[in-house]
């Protein structure tokens, strides 16, 4: 083995490959360090009672910041609001997307393609741009400052992309099993619920998790549509660290950010493992 490696190293191409790998490693490590610095602040400051704006090792690491923010007002209520809003909206989005994907994936019609293209088109529109009219509209129909109104809008905003992803995943489920169920007299709804959705389990969870992550991190929508402090989700309530408490408690801000970010990071790991590292919003980007 060893002699084999030495012999290969004499080939210029192989030696160049080794050198090239070292150069690539070095370049990547530089980028990784640069990207890691702000992340390092997050972790270190959350463990440092006297955290400042700079990255530094805590003199005496404690969990004090975490115990300070783990109160109803600061953490539990906003997190529960986030969970209610994003969880409800995700259920609605996934449900509607699964239903819509079924005929789009299974039946031929000259309307199917224009419908899908419209959906894809609206998936790309910048939602930020319609938030001012949405606010005005919500004031008129009295949905402003309600969690369900916010959830409904988030669900609609995420729906086009969910329909598109879901349709592509559903295309991958062979139609043969369904046809057997049809001949046994099952309705389309039973077929969808009992046969197709279980078969596309991984795809379904990708759509659900991706939708949830996007909603959990969304700042602008709840920022515009919710006003009363007790209804705010974590993405907006985080600003109270700047407003009400005078001097900013950076350690507590970092601890809260860690708590708020952990669920989405865990969920991302869950789906990326399931589909291999190359989950690049696969179907969506490549059509």
């Amino acid at each position: 083995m060893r002699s084999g490696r030495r012999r290969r190293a004499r080939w210029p191409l192989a030696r160049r490959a080794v050198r090239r790998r070292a150069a690539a490693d070095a370049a990547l490590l530089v980028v990784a360090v640069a990207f890691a610095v702000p992340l390092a602040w997050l972790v270190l400051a959350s463990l440092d009672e006297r955290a400042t704006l700079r990255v530094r090792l805590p003199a005496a690491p404690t969990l004090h910041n975490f115990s300070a923010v783990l109160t109803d007002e600061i953490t539990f209520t906003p997190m529960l609001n986030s969970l209610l809003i994003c969880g409800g909206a995700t259920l609605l989005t996934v449900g509607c997307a699964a239903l819509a994907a079924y005929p789009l994936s299974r039946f031929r019609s000259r309307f199917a393609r224009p419908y899908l293209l419209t959906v894809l088109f609206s998936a790309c529109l910048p939602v930020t741009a319609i938030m001012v009219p949405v606010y005005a509209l919500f004031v008129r129909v009295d949905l402003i400052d309600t969690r369900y109104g916010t959830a409904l809008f988030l669900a609609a905003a995420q729906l086009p992309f969910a329909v598109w992803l879901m349709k592509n995943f559903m295309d991958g489920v062979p139609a043969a099993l369904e046809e057997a169920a049809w001949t046994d007299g099952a309705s389309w709804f039973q077929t969808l619920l009992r046969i197709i959705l279980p078969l596309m389990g991984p795809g379904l969870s990708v759509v659900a998790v991706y939708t949830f992550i996007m909603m959990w991190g969304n700042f602008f929508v709840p920022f515009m549509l919710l006003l009363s402090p007790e209804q705010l989700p974590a993405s907006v309530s985080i600003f109270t660290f700047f407003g009400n408490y005078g001097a900013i408690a950076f350690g507590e801000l970092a601890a809260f950010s860690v708590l708020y970010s952990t669920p989405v990071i865990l969920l991302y790991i869950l789906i990326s493992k399931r589909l291999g590292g190359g989950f690049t919003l696969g179907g969506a980007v490549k059509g």
Partner: protein
Amino acid sequence: MIRRLLRWSPLAPATVLLLLFLAGPVGYCGYLAVTDTQLTGQESASFVGLANFRHALADPEFRNAVLLTLVFTVVSALLGQNTLGLALAGLLRRASRPVRTVTGAVVITAWVLPEIVAGFLLYTFFERRGTLNAVLAWLHLPTQDWLFTLPILAVSFANVWRGTAFSMLVYSAALAEIPQEVTESAEVDGAGGLRRLWHITLPMIRRSIGTNLMLNTLQTLSVFGLIWALTRGGPGNRSQTLPVFMYDQAFVKSLIGYGTAVALLLLVVGALFSAVYLRLLREEV
């Protein structure tokens, strides 16, 4: 006929939701943009035609916002995320396994973090007493108050930090599809690294490049939370891109009608990019 309608009935819930909450606001956007609606007093709103748009074109603050949006998009999406993402994807293919895993994890974590957390993290990085100046001082380089002297560059770098992972993933997938023989035979023919990149790699992934540029641009056009957390559009209006300008006009200055007209312009630009993106996809399918 009825059976056919019944077949398509599962489309109904999604369609209703989209019409009510997406198409509705887009239509209402068109209506509000031609009125002088203000935040207080719905009754006084009246039709003003294209006055809001004329006002926008003559408004130096609007022109400032358009210019800053252009800078923000070109620097962070086209140059930053796109180029760095491609470079990272290329390097990842050559790197050793542990380096590949660590770099991928760090860059993707920056992307998965909620937007507002990313905003705060980069705030601590760029702030006068923050980490960047600490590093510069340690290297004996001049320090400065980045969020004050170069706010638009600071928010652009923040967007690069947050968005590069997407380009990296897109290009990793694209590079993995280039057949090994093509690269190898070019290498045997003696084509150097740059020439291989220019004559072989880039032409072979050109569709991914188009897709990626479009999606980056669309994402960057709607960035609000990141800028809000870093600078709130300031100091003054020196990092006020169109979404922040729109928010400022509609809610701080209470000019809903004018804010909506600006939003409509943003929406039209977004729609144009969307349409181009769909064209690109159609060529591919």
